[in-house]
């Protein structure tokens, strides 16, 4: 293989992949999965809903753009002078899609035939913006209905209400799709401005997994990628106080039973959590609140949670981090009370060796299970890389974790003074 290609192996998994620094500026990951029928590719940019205020290196001024523009841009990338991208993929029988999160926008396809054609189209359309007054205008109705759909989705509302209760100014509290008002301000010029800033290959990455041939992938990249001038973008967030906004937020909706999310906000830090911190938090949450835990048993016995909905996660991105517990419950305040007591007990008594071992094994097993699917692999590699992490190192961090490290992690997490409870309750 050519220069700039690094092979990364995991003995534990028996898998390997290649990381390539392409001369165009793009970082490329290739993860061949032998004997698979399908191939999956994701081409993404480190640009999401939180990037509404930014400065380009070498420039004086600050750019401010309307909420929801990254998502709007994602929709509009599907149109080109020659027509719709879906039509190009339809000819080769592949499925194309895209998603926008808080901190990234990704374009993906999966196919079982014509991989080279599919990859060529992906690299082509994402590098070719085409926005006109008319096409931008047309999208208002469609995205307007997408926003309305989220308004009726209790699981979505309970999260954004929680984020509003925790964050004073960080844009993570704003809906990814924006609002009817904010998207009305979007123009072709603003879309081009955001495109030029964030769709620079130095700010992007490509990952392919499954039935792929590394030489072929690189040869298509050589042909299709147009070198980008190195540039850096600085995300600008207003200073975020450590405190929360509200300890409790409640909204009434057409639901039969209440839903809740309980969040513990962590102080904003520069940079992102590393693989070890992630692994330790995942183990800690497993020990604290998995179906094998005493807390879970107490909550179930008290009729306060159900197995189908209760869970926990580490919700973390640029400038924000929190542990979130969620589920359906007839009495979310009582759930909060029991969770707080258990966290305190953990602080006093520790995790315990046996509980630690079970929790570590579970996190290890979950990770392995996710490595079956090319789509999971590719999406994970990309999102981990955007946060400066490597996928196999996470597995090693889990396998090599010890109880003390996990307890150390607890010292900086789940502070009851920074907890907010969000509830969606029945409107009648």
């Amino acid at each position: 293989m050519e220069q700039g290609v690094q092979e990364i192996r995991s003995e534990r998994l028996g898998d390997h992949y290649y990381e390539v620094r392409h001369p165009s500026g793009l970082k490329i990951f290739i993860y061949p999965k032998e004997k698979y029928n399908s191939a999956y590719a994701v081409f993404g940019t480190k640009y999401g809903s939180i990037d509404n205020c930014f400065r380009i290196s070498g420039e004086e001024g600050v750019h401010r753009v309307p909420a929801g523009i990254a998502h709007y841009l994602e929709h509009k990338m599907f149109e080109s002078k020659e027509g719709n991208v879906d039509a190009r993929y339809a000819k080769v029988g592949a499925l194309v899609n895209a998603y926008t999160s808080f901190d990234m926008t990704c374009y993906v396809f999966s196919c079982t035939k014509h991989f080279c054609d599919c990859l060529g189209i992906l690299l082509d359309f994402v590098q070719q913006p085409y926005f006109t007054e008319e096409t931008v205008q047309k999208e208002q109705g469609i995205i307007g209905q997408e926003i309305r759909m989220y308004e009726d989705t209790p699981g979505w509302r309970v999260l954004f209400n929680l984020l509003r209760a925790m964050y004073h100014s960080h844009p993570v509290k704003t809906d990814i799709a924006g609002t009817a008002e904010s998207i009305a301000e979007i123009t072709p010029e603003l879309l081009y401005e955001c495109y030029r800033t964030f769709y620079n290959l130095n700010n992007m990455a490509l990952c392919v997994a499954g039935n792929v041939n590394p030489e072929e992938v690189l040869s298509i990249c050589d042909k299709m990628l147009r070198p980008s001038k190195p540039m850096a973008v600085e995300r600008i967030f207003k200073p975020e106080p450590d405190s929360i906004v509200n300890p409790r937020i409640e909204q009434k909706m057409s639901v039969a039973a209440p839903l809740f999310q309980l969040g513990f906000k962590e102080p904003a830090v520069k940079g992102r959590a590393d693989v070890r911190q992630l692994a330790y938090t995942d183990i800690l949450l497993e020990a604290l609140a998995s179906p094998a835990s005493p807390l879970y048993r107490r909550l179930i016995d008290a009729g306060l949670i159900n197995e189908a909905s209760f869970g926990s996660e580490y919700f973390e991105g640029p400038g924000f981090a929190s542990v979130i517990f969620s589920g359906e419950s007839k009495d979310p305040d009582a759930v909060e009370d029991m969770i707080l007591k258990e966290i305190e007990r953990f602080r006093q008594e520790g995790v315990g060796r046996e509980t630690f071992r079970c929790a570590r094994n579970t996190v290890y097993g979950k990770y392995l299970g996710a490595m079956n699917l090319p789509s999971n692999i590719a999406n994970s590699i990309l999102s981990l890389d955007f946060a400066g992490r490597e996928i196999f190192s996470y597995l090693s961090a889990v396998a090599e974790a010890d109880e003390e490290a996990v307890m150390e992690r607890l010292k900086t997490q789940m502070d009851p003074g920074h907890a907010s409870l969000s509830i969606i309750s029945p409107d009648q």
Partner: protein
Amino acid sequence: MAGITQRSVCSGVTFRGIRDDRYKTVLMSINFFLPLNRKTVSSNAILPFLLKRASREYPDFTKLNEHLAELYGAVLDADVQRLGDVQILSVSASAIADRYALDGEKISAELSNLLCSVCFAPPLQDGLFPEDGFLQEKRQLEETLDAEFNNKVGYALRRCEEIMCVDEPYGIGRLGSKKEITSLRRENLTAAWEYMIRHARVEIFVLGDCDPEPAFREFSDAFRSLGRTSFELCPTVVKKVAGKKKDVTERMNVAQSKLVIGFRTGCAEPEKGAPAVKLMNALYGGMPTSKLFLNVREKMGLCYYCAPAYNSVKGILEVQSGVEQKNLKRAEEEILSQLEEIRSGNFTDEEVTEAKCYLSNIYHTFSDSLEAMENWYLVKTMYAPTRTPEEEADMVNDVTREEIVEAAQHMTVKN
């Protein structure tokens, strides 16, 4: 890809295995098929959940979950599905393959053992399921119905099916009603469990990176020892033509209206016409280049989603969309008018080729996922012959333009 092996265990019980080391995991499931019936729907529905929470060996829910956690987060799962007029009660177990265990544990053997013990050796007390477990699972089943109401897209779809199939078992739903769940009695459940293991049609799967042989022996012994002699046949009613169209509107405090239109296609598996309905469905609205997407969404900007789904076991097709209340009529008219286009043959050969490629891609992707393969063969066991996804792709590929038009012409929403 490794092939599937199929073996008969005893009366009405079939075992299927796929051994494939591409996967890092193993998935085993026992699926009980029973006819949907108003009288038994809820007492059946609670069974898989009751079973997977404890066994004689692990009578305590937390101890059982500790054991699963130790086995690298093995998952013991329960599910209830409705496939045609049949209620499928499933208990499954999944975990990482033995070769990835950090301390050399024999995980697959543990998994089949656990699955057998929860299904065949529940911790009965005086012949009854323990009261605390029963009350917990009953409450959680009620809460599942609440959660289904909370999801308005899914709720609208299910309401449409209930209304369409009010006189058929399919209209009962997979769990039964809240009232039926609330009136469940613990005293009746042991008999329901015994009936299920003795008389349901049973499909067993062992898939992934493990030798299926030991699991086969274990499950076979368990079922053979029951002395099964007969089993439920589980037929499905397929109405060829829709009855009088019913327009039902439910008002709720929501931002967006959900519209669902249910059609009878006049054709269900394993009829010869089923591949043509699948292709017609893709052409009509299954893809981002199909008629509903291009017109109702892209041209008219009425919605974010507008898509049909063909239920090939029941022979119904439902189009669903989320639209502003004031646009409901326009959306409905356009959905019906796009169907008229297909009925009149207003589509190009290129569109047909694209729909075939689209479906072929989906079929050829199935074998890359254990869950997708399990689901594929679970549905396929409803009728003979059992086809592979690749064989089905070939059948769709052979569909002609005339057959698509004919399939669209057989779609009815009213007399």
